[in-house]
C-alpha cells in the first residue's frame, strides 16, 4: 500500500511534463558536471560548501487539532527546520477537527501569499479545491499526519506521516501474535469516525479478519476525554473479564486501556495491551510491563520534513523536495522505552534544544 501511495504521489507530483523525467535529467546533468569537475581537479570537499542560503519563507501548518499534545514535537520539528533554513511558520487550523475551519485557514494562507502549506488532509474531498487553488497560485501544498486516499484527485505534492490504515493493520499483526487463538479482544476508539483513528481501527479489523486465528472482538466507543475513556474501558473489562487483550487506536484510549489493565493486573493474567502514541503514562506502563507496545509515528519528523521539503521546493524552483515519507517505523516496547521516557525535545517533553 505504501508503495502504491508513493507511486501515486510521484505521478501526481510529476504533472504533465513528468517530474520524474525532470529529476532524472537533473541527476544526469549533475553526474556529468561532477565528472567534468573531477577531471579538471576542481572538486571541493563538501565541508567547504557555504551551504544552502537562509530564506525568509513563511509556511503555514493547517492542523485538525491545533492544541493536541501529540503535535508538540511536530511544532518543535517545524521550529528547528525553520531555524535551520531561516524560515518562519504559522500553526493554524481547527481545535476540534472542524474541516470547514481548516479549509478557511488554508484559504487565508493563500490570500496571505504563503510560501507553502502543510495540511492534515483529514477529509477525502474537502481540501481538493483549496489545494488546487493554492497550487494554481504557485503555493506548494504538502500533506502531513493525515492523507487523502490512494487515487484521490487532490493535488498535494507529498505525504509525510503515518499511513493510518496500514499502521493499524501492521500493529494488529503484531498484537495478534501475542493473543491466544480463538480469544476475545477489545478495540477502543475515542471518537468513532474520527479521521485519524477510524482508519487505524479499520486496519485492526481487517488484520483480524485476514489473520484467520478466530479472534473475536468488540469495538468500544471510549469517549472524548480521558476520564470517560477510563470509565468505559473499565466498565467493559468488568463485564468481559475473559478479554485477552485491549487495544487503543489513539493516545488517550491506549492509556485508558493500560490504566485499567494495571488496576486489574491484566498482564499477570496473560492479557495484552497495545496501541498508539506516546502518552507519558503509557510509556510508564510499558516500562512496568503492563502495556506490550505502542506505535511511535515520530511526530517531530511531521513538522521538520514539511518545512524542509517546502524550503527545497521553493529554493529549487520546484525541482527538489516533495517525496512521501512514512514516519511510523518505530514500536516502543519494554526493550527500548528508556530512550523515550527522558525529557527530550524530539518527543515533545522538553523545549530544550539539543546541544
Amino acid at each position: 500500500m505504501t508503495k502504491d501511495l508513493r507511486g501515486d504521489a510521484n505521478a501526481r507530483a510529476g504533472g504533465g511534463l513528468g517530474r520524474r523525467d525532470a529529476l532524472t535529467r537533473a541527476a544526469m546533468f549533475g553526474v556529468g558536471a561532477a565528472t567534468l569537475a573531477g577531471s579538471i581537479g576542481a572538486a571541493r570537499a563538501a565541508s567547504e560548501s557555504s551551504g544552502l542560503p537562509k530564506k525568509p519563507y513563511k509556511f503555514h501548518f493547517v492542523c485538525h487539532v491545533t492544541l493536541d499534545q501529540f503535535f508538540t514535537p511536530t511544532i518543535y520539528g517545524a521550529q528547528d527546520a525553520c531555524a535551520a533554513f531561516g524560515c518562519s511558520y504559522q500553526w493554524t487550523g481547527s481545535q476540534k477537527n472542524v474541516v470547514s475551519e481548516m479549509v478557511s485557514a488554508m484559504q487565508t494562507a493563500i490570500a496571505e501569499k504563503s510560501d507553502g502549506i502543510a495540511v492534515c488532509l483529514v477529509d477525502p474531498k474537502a481540501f481538493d479545491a483549496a489545494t488546487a487553488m493554492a497550487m494554481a497560485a504557485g503555493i506548494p501544498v504538502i500533506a502531513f499526519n493525515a492523507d487523502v486516499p490512494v487515487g484521490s484527485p487532490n493535488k498535494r505534492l507529498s505525504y509525510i506521516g503515518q499511513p493510518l490504515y496500514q499502521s493499524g493493520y501492521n500493529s494488529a499483526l503484531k498484537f495478534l501474535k501475542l493473543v491466544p487463538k480463538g480469544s476475545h479482544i477489545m478495540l477502543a476508539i475515542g471518537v468513532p469516525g474520527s479521521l485519524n483513528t477510524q482508519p487505524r481501527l479499520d486496519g485492526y479489523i481487517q488484520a483480524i479478519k485476514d489473520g484467520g486465528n478466530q479472534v473475536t472482538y468488540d469495538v468500544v466507543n471510549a469517549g472524548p476525554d480521558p476520564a470517560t475513556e477510563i470509565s468505559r474501558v473499565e466498565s467493559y473489562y468488568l463485564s468481559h473479564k475473559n478479554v485477552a487483550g485491549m487495544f487503543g487506536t489513539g493516545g488517550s484510549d491506549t492509556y485508558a486501556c493500560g490504566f485499567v489493565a494495571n488496576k486489574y493486573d491484566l498482564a499477570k493474567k496473560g492479557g495484552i495491551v497495545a496501541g498508539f502514541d506516546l502518552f507519558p503514562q503509557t510509556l510508564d506502563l510499558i516500562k512496568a510491563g503492563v502495556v506490550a507496545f505502542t506505535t511511535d509515528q515520530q511526530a517531530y519528523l511531521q513538522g521538520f520534513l514539511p518545512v524542509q521539503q517546502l524550503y527545497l521546493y521553493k529554493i529549487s524552483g520546484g525541482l527538489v523536495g516533495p517525496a512521501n515519507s512514512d514516519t511510523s517505523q518505530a514500536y516502543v516496547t519494554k526493550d527500548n522505552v528508556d530512550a523515550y521516557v527522558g525529557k527530550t525535545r524530539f518527543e515533545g517533553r522538553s523545549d530544550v534544544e539539543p546541544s
Partner: protein
Amino acid sequence: MKTQAVPRIGQRDDIGRGGGVSRQIERLLVLMSRYREASIAVVAIVMVIYFQIGSDGGFLSSQFMSVVLRDTGRLGLIAIAEVMLMITGEIDISVSGTFSLAPYMMVLMSITWGLPLAVGGAIGVVLGILIGFVNGIITVRLRVPSLITTVGTLFFVQGIVVSIYNSQPIIAPIEEPFNAIFGESLYDPSDSFWSWHGVTAFTPFLWTVLVVAALALVLKKTTFGLHTIATGSNIVGAREIGVRTDRIKVCNFMIAGGCAAFAGVINTAQFASADPQAGSPFLTLQAIAAAVIGGTSLLGGSGTVIGALIGAFVVASLNNGLVMLGAQATVSDIYLGAAIVAAMILSVQVDRLRVRRRR
C-alpha cells in the same frame, strides 16, 4: 404542601380499605408528589432494573458500582455547579476549562516547587472560584450574556492550560493519604467492602454527596438560597424587595467555579494524571443534561441539586451500562442519545403526574 397531602391520604384510605396494594401505590404517589426529585428517581430506578437484568446481575456489583458512582461524582459536581447558576437564570460553559486548569496547576506546583498536593489543590479551587468571580463580574456588570462570557473564558482558560506546559499530560505525584482521600481507589475485590479500602472505591462520589448536601441546605434553609431562587424566578421583583441580585449571581458563579475546580482536583487524584484536555465540552454538555433531567429549569427560578446528582447517576449509568451490555462503538452514541431523551421524557411525564396530584 402537607395540608394538601394529608386529607388525600384519608380519602384514598376510605376508598381503598381492604386493598393493600392500591394503598401502597397511593402512598408512593403521595410521597412522589412531595418531592421534585421523585420523577428522576423513578427514571433511575427503572434504568437500574433494566441494566441489572440485562447484565445478569452484574450492574449492581460493588466493582461496577464503584465505576458508575465515581463517574457520577465527577459529573455530579459539574452538574450541581450548573444547577446553582441555572436557578439564577445563568449558565457557565467554562466549567470544563476550570476542570482542566485547577488540577494542572496543582500538579505543576507540586513538581516544580515541591508544594504538597493538598496545598496545590486548595490553590486550584481558589483559582476556580476566581474564574467564577471574573465570569460573574463580566456577566452582571458589563451586561454580557453568561453564555457568551463563559464561552470566551472557556477558550481563554483552555488556551492557558495547553500553553503552560506545551499541551503535555503530566504524570502526577502520588501523596498518600491525599490521593486516597480525594479519589484514588485502593479497593481490591478481596478487601472488605466496609474497610478503608472499600471506602476509597467511592470517595469521588462521597465528596460529591457532601457538597450536594451542603448546597441543598443552603438552597432550602438560608437567606442566600432563598435569594438565589428569587433572583431566577423574578429578578425585577427580587430587586424591588431588596435582593442584591448581582451579588447573588456573582456568588453563584464563584460556587460553580469552585465546584468545577474541585471536580478536576478529584479527577487528577483518582488517575494520578493531569491532562490538559481532561475537561472536554462533552463533560459540560453531559452535566447540563444531568441537571435538566434532574429537574432544574433552563429558564431559571427552580432547580434541585439532589435531582442533579440523580441525573448525573442516570447519565453515568448510561455511559457505562451501555458498554456493559455490549453496545458497539458505531451505534453506542445512538443508544446514549436516545436514552437521554427517553429519560427526559419519562422524567417530565412523571413530574406532570406529580404536579397533577399536588393540585
